[in-house]
């Protein structure tokens, strides 16, 4: 009797338990399915903006009464804003600016949610590409600036081409052309920094083409120097070098088109394969030194600033780290790759859009342009702006050259949210000779297709 019971009970309990699990699973499953879908509350799209037909005057802004303009910006803007905000408040005395600064990572992570909230900032910075600007446009959270560009003449003059990355199609799926949704007063240019003292020792002049650079690399290597200082553990520094080369092995316009997500464009081109092969050859020849994948970009620039390495391939954003010492900058004659920094947007829900427009207009003036350059960065308006140091002037010249050459193609990672990871990782593999340049371009194209062809 005893044995029968003890033999029976576990089975019974087990099946009861199994039934319990099944029931629980069913209930949970049903509950999950029947509950309100995440985001179904939805975000209400803003009201259609009233287009402006003439430049906003102080009188127009005064009509708004005493207002507070809420803003969000990258903390890198703080030095610039310290002079712009008081100037703005002086010109428009009824406006008080309430500025919140965020680190770049914070800005990326929180801006979309803030813009979608019930009380969004009136004016805020986004970032070019699908992760941030694309989401803002798709959810109709930012005001179109076409009317502003027309009225203020942004579409003409030196800064005109820099607007393209902030232009989107109706659905927020491709950018580079279409409706303007943002404006950045700041530009960036990629190029090659060199240690001027070492060039002198080696008896070479600053390279102006990739072919020149390649010759210099041989000389530097033979002299026992590390030719190019590279820190690629964050996976992105290598892509800057790659894009500088790739801009010379194909028509730069094709790169911009591909980044913009135009249907039918492809990364699997001879130019891209050739650029990848060059990277592999340089890595194999030891031009990047050993262990570049284990060094962070920040550590690499610090080493270069201390005198390690002859060249550093980066961009104008690195200039601030290279103020001590004799460093020079050259974008390649083919035009170093350049791009526009984080654009400013006006919330589509803002009741004070007119004041926001006045603020953006002020950012887009030669006076502010000069302040941007004085602060060590590059303005989109280059006319009537002069550099204070040799390195600044060289960087500004580099920017002008890229704008003239039409190589302001932008960054590869704009094209898909995971492109930085995919391309950065694949480039590490191709440089180490673990995959071929064919496989590299196909991997990159597959990530592009996942974003642009599925939708």
């Amino acid at each position, binding site marked *: 009797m005893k044995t029968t019971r003890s033999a029976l009970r576990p089975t019974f309990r087990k099946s009861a338990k199994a039934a*319990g*699990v099944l029931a*629980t*699973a069913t209930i*949970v499953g049903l509950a*999950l*399915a029947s*509950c309100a*879908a*995440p*985001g*179904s509350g*939805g*975000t209400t799209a803003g009201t259609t903006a009233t287009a402006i037909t003439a430049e906003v005057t102080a009188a127009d802004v005064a009509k708004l009464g005493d207002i507070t303009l809420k803003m969000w910006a990258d903390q890198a803007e703080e030095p610039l804003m310290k002079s712009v905000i008081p100037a703005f408040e002086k010109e428009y005395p009824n406006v008080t600016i309430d500025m919140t600064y965020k680190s770049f990572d914070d800005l*990326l*992570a929180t801006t*979309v*949610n803030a813009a*979608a909230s019930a009380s969004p900032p009136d004016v805020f910075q986004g970032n070019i590409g699908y*992760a941030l600007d694309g*989401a803002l446009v*798709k*959810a109709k959270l930012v005001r179109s600036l076409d009317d502003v560009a027309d009225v203020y003449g942004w579409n003409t003059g030196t800064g005109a081409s820099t607007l393209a990355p902030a232009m989107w199609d109706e659905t927020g799926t491709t950018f580079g052309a279409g409706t303007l949704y943002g404006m950045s007063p700041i530009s960036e240019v990629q190029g090659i920094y060199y240690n001027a003292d070492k060039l002198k020792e080696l008896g070479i002049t600053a390279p102006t083409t990739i072919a020149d650079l390649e010759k210099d690399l041989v000389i530097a290597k033979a002299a026992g120097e590390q030719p190019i200082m590279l820190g*690629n*553990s*964050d*996976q992105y520094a290598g892509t800057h070098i790659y894009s500088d080369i790739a801009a010379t092995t194909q028509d730069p316009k094709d790169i911009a088109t591909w980044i913009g997500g135009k249907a039918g464009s492809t990364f699997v081109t001879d130019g891209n394969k050739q650029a990848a092969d060059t990277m592999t050859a340089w890595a194999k020849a030891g031009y990047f*030194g*050993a*262990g*570049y*994948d*284990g*060094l*962070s970009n920040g*550590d690499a620039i610090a080493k270069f600033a201390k005198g390690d390495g002859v060249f550093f391939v980066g961009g104008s954003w690195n200039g601030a780290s290279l103020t001590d010492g004799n460093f020079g900058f050259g974008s390649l004659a083919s035009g170093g790759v350049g791009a526009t920094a984080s654009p400013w947007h006006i919330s589509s829900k803002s009741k004070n859009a007119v004041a926001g427009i006045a603020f953006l207009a002020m950012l887009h003036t030669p006076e502010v342009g000069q302040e941007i350059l004085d602060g060590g960065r590059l303005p989109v308006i280059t006319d009537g702006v002069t550099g204070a140091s040799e390195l600044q002037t060289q960087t500004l010249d580099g920017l002008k050259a890229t704008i003239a050459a039409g190589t302001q193609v932008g960054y590869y990672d704009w094209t898909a*949210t*995971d492109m930085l*990871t995919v391309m*950065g*990782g*694949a480039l*590490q*593999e191709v440089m*180490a000779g*673990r995959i071929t340049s064919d496989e590299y371009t196909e991997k990159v194209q597959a990530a592009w297709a996942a974003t642009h062809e599925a939708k």
Partner: protein
Amino acid sequence: MTSLHRTADVVVAPAGRRPRRAWSRYNWTSLIYLAPALVFFVVFVLYPIWVSAQTSLYVYDGLTPSVWAGLDNYVTVFTDPTLRDALLHSLFLLIFYAFLPVCIGLLLAGAMSRIRIYGLTLFRALLFLPQILSSVVVAVAWRGLLEIDGPVNALLRFVGLGSFATSWLGNFDTALPSIGVVGTWVEYGLCMVLFLSGIATIDRSLYEAARLDGAGPVREFFAITLPALRPQISIALILTITFALRNFDLIWNTTRGGPGTSTTVPSLFVYQDAFQNRELGLASALAIVLTLVILVVVGIVQWLVREPKEVNR
């Protein structure tokens, strides 16, 4: 989900045996004392898990209305080869994050309890230090140590092993084990402290008896210390395995999953999908799967180190 089920199990079992009477007798006032912690637990643990489970069944960018996806996200999780590789990397890291720290912890604790060391408290504190440091600090420090010109390689060159010098975190073959070593360094202190406290509770007379029977230090360790530490080993394994499988910060701050994809782990993709790619559904599905994997692995290990049933002698 699993934690929900577990809770239900615990409450239902006694009620089943003594229906109704137990409920009416139940001391409801005790709930008042539990309430604050319970509310906290529900709001900050159960509810987020619930929302994750729900989100995992949708395609959702966190912004525009979500679209029902059924189990599509889970299908992606199990079929995407990059995610499968990431899971394998995590399982490999278990050796370094859980197995080695427990072994080293046992060795140190065994030695410390036996030998009278002058300034024991100081050594214990120093050895525990890695556990207290912020993981970002640990990552940055080790990145410097393991660099091509870093101290580790300098040491190798000094002792004539220069041919082994490499960029440990930048080399496709050494990156994953190197991150593993960092994990070992972080975790062994915790294990050691757990085991030391366990050893303190062992009756000293057992050792005396063993010694009288002629047992040496090794025999003593395996016959008395190790079996007595079973509960501590079990806890150490739970903590280290959980740390290993959800490890993100060390990898993000050393290699970002590189070079190539040689050090990717699931939690890296959870972060990227949720915060960079705005694919909250896929990120949630991956997170849920990761949680279940952790529960299963911890469950298996717990079963392996369980107290043996009383044996009739």
